[in-house]
C-alpha cells in the first residue's frame, strides 16, 4: 500500500534516521559533480540541479524547478561505502624474528543511503553476491553492509547514457530497499512512498504521511514508465546470447580496433558500481618493526594487474578491454549467475574518449565476428 509524503515533510526522513543513529550518505554537489557524501539535512541534496551526460561528457545544470532527485548517477557509486577504495586489513609487529598480526578493528557504522537508484540497488545486490555469497565472505563488506538502510528512488529523469531497461534493472526500483520513493513535482511537489521492510515501516511511521489515492499512484507510476520508454528508445543493448557472443569473440580483430581508442586509463572500472577488483599494499616502517597491509581498488587495465614472475599476462590494451567487457557481460554470468552490468552508463560518461559499451556490443553483433587467431585444439 503506497503512501504520500509531502515535499515539506521529506526532511523528516533525515531527522528520523539520524535519531536512530544513522550516518546519512547521499548525493550532493562537490567539484562540479554529484557525488555520494555525508548529508546533514535534506537541504544538502542537489536541489534544482540536473546533470547532462553523454559519451565522455558530464556537466551540471540548473533546473527550472526545485526537484530533489532531478538528475541521474554521477561518478560515485555506493561501493565507495561498502567496498571502500582504501582500507587497512591488518597490522603486524616484528621483533627478533617473531611476527605478531593484529586484526583490524573496524568501528561499526550505521549508514543510511538516500537516493539509491534502481540500477544501483541491483549493483549493490551484485556485489552482495560477490562478497557475501561465495565460498569465502569478505568480512569488511559484511560488516559495512549489514546495517545499511536504503531509501531508493525510482527514476523519472534519465541521461542519454542510461540503458537500465536493456539490463532489466530499472528505472523502477525493485526489491531490496527499505523505503522506495517516486518524486512527483506537479501539481504539488510530493513523494509516492513504498515500504520494503519492517525497518522501512518503522522509519515511515515517524514521518508525516498519508495513504496514496489510486490516481496518485497511477500518475507517479506513469512518470517512471514514460521515462522507461525514453531510455529504451535512446540507448539499448541486445543481451540475448550475449555470453556466447563474447566467448566466441576472443579472437576477434575488433579488440585491436578498440585498442586504438582506449587509453587503458581505468576510469570505467573505478566508476563501475559492480567492479570489485582490489590489490593489497604492504607498508613497512623504516625500523622494520611495524607493517600494515592495505587493500586498494585495482583495475584490470593496469599492467601490474596480471603481473607474474614470468611477465604480464595482459599487456595489450585490446586484451585488457576484451577482459573487462567479457568479464562484465559474459564470464560474470558463469561466476555469479548474473550479468555484471546494470546499465547505469557510468563507463560511457566517464570514458575520456567516449567508448560506449553498448556500441562495442553492437559492433561484435554486426561482425558476427569470429576471427580465430589460432586453431583450437580438439
Amino acid at each position: 500500500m503506497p503512501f504520500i509524503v509531502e515535499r515539506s515533510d521529506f526532511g523528516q526522513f533525515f531527522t528520523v534516521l539520524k535519531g536512530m543513529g544513522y550516518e546519512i550518505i547521499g548525493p550532493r554537489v562537490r567539484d562540479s559533480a554529484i557525488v555520494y557524501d555525508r548529508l546533514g539535512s535534506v537541504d544538502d541534496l542537489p536541489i534544482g540541479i540536473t546533470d547532462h551526460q553523454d559519451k565522455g561528457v558530464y556537466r551540471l545544470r540548473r533546473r527550472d524547478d526545485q526537484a530533489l532527485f532531478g538528475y541521474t548517477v554521477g561518478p560515485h557509486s555506493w561501493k565507495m561505502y561498502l567496498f571502500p577504495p582504501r582500507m587497512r586489513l591488518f597490522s603486524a609487529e616484528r621483533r627478533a624474528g617473531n611476527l605478531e598480526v593484529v586484526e583490524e578493528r573496524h568501528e561499526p557504522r550505521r549508514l543510511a543511503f538516500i537516493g539509491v537508484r534502481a540500477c544501483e540497488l541491483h549493483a549493490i545486490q551484485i556485489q552482495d553476491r560477490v562478497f557475501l555469497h561465495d565460498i569465502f565472505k569478505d568480512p569488511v563488506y559484511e560488516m559495512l553492509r549489514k546495517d545499511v538502510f536504503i531509501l531508493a528512488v525510482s527514476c523519472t529523469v534519465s541521461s542519454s547514457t542510461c540503458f537500465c531497461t536493456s539490463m532489466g534493472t530499472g528505472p523502477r526500483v525493485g526489491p531490496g530497499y527499505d523505503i522506495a520513493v517516486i518524486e512527483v513535482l506537479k501539481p504539488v511537489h510530493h513523494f509516492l512512498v513504498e515500504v520494503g521492510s519492517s525497518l522501512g515501516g518503522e522509519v515511515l511511521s515517524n514521518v508525516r504521511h498519508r495513504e496514496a489515492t489510486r490516481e496518485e499512484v497511477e500518475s507517479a507510476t506513469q512518470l517512471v514508465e514514460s521515462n522507461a520508454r525514453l531510455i529504451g528508445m535512446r540507448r539499448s543493448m541486445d543481451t540475448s546470447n550475449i555470453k556466447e557472443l563474447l566467448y566466441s569473440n576472443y579472437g576477434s580483430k575488433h579488440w585491436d580496433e578498440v585498442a586504438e581508442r582506449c587509453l587503458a586509463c581505468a576510469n570505467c572500472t573505478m566508476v563501475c558500481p559492480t567492479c570489485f577488483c582490489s590489490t593489497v599494499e604492504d607498508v613497512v616502517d623504516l625500523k622494520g618493526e611495524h607493517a600494515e597491509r592495505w587493500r586498494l581498488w585495482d583495475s584490470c587495465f593496469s599492467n601490474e594487474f596480471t603481473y607474474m614472475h614470468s611477465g604480464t599476462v595482459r599487456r595489450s590494451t585490446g586484451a585488457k578491454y576484451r577482459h573487462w567487457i567479457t568479464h562484465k557481460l559474459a564470464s560474470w554470468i558463469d561466476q555469479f549467475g548474473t550479468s555484471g552490468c546494470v546499465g547505469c552508463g557510468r563507463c560511457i560518461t566517464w570514458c575520456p574518449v567516449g567508448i560506449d559499451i553498448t556500441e562495442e556490443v553492437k559492433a561484435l553483433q554486426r561482425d558476427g565476428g569470429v576471427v580465430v587467431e589460432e586453431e583450437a585444439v580438439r
Partner: protein
Amino acid sequence: MGMHAYGGRYDVGVNAVEDRVGGMGGGVHGANPYLPRICRVRRVKRETYNTFTIDVEADGFRFMPGQFNMLYAFVGEVPISISSDPDNHEFISHTIRSVGHVTRALCSLRAGDSVGVRGPFGNPWPIKEHEGSDIVVVAGGLGLAPLRPLMYHVLANRARYGRVFLLYGTKTQRDILYRSELARWRARFDIDVHVTLSRADGRWHGNVGVVTSLIPRVHVDPMYASAFICGPEVMMRFVARELLNLGLDANRIFLSMERNMKCAVGLCGHCQFGPEFVCKDGPVLAYSRIASLLNVAEV
C-alpha cells in the same frame, strides 16, 4: 565429496569446500580469510642455487595435494604451493625460488622464526578420484613442487594405481629439485621416472631436450590413464597436446594454472582466466575445461 571423477567442470560441492578450507586449525571458512596465522619455521633447506624449501610446523594443518598457501613475510605475501607429504602431520613444506623481495625475505628465514600463513587454498589434484588408472605426472621446473604431494600420495597407495610415470624437465643440472628423492624414486621398480634437461654439459648422461621429448617413453593404457601436469603454461599446452595424441581423454588431463594472486579467496579478481578464478576454481583445472582459452594469447 562433491567432485566426480573425469568431469569437465567438476562441481565444487559444499562438502568439498569444507574439506578444502578446513585445514587451518579453526579453518578459514567464516573467519577473516585475510588474516595470516603465525607459524613457526622448522627448517629452511637449500634445494638449488636459488631455490629453498621452508618447512613450517603443521600444528593441525591439513591440505590436499595441489593446494597452495599464501606466505606472509612482513614485507609482503606470495602464493606458494605446498610441496610436502599430505600424510605428514608434523610439518608442511613450501619450495620457493628467490626472485623478488618477498621470496628473498622468505628464503632468508631461519629455524625458529615466524612466518604468516593463509591457507590451504585451491582445488586439489583429483588423485583419489583416479584410483585404478595409469598415472602420468609431468613437471616442468619448479612445477615439480605442487606435484610432489601427489607423488607421495600415489606411492603411499601404490597398489591402487596402475602404471606410474613421472616426467621431469628442467633447465640445467644445477636446477634439479629434490635430488635425493628423485634418486630414490628412480630406484624403485614400480614407477618410471625420467628426467630431461634443456641444456646439459658432459657430466649429464640423461636425456637432453624439453619435457615433451620424454612423452614417447610413456607406455600407458590411454583409455585408463590420467595425467597431472604443472609447469610453464606453454609447456603444459604442448604436453597436453602430446598426451591427447597418445590417446588420453581431455577430461583426464589436469593442469595447475598460474596467475597473479592477491587474496587467494576469489575476491580480488586478479587471477581470472576466462570465467575461472585460478585461486578457487583452480589452480588445478581439467584440460577439457580450459583448452579453448589456453590457445588464446593474453587471457
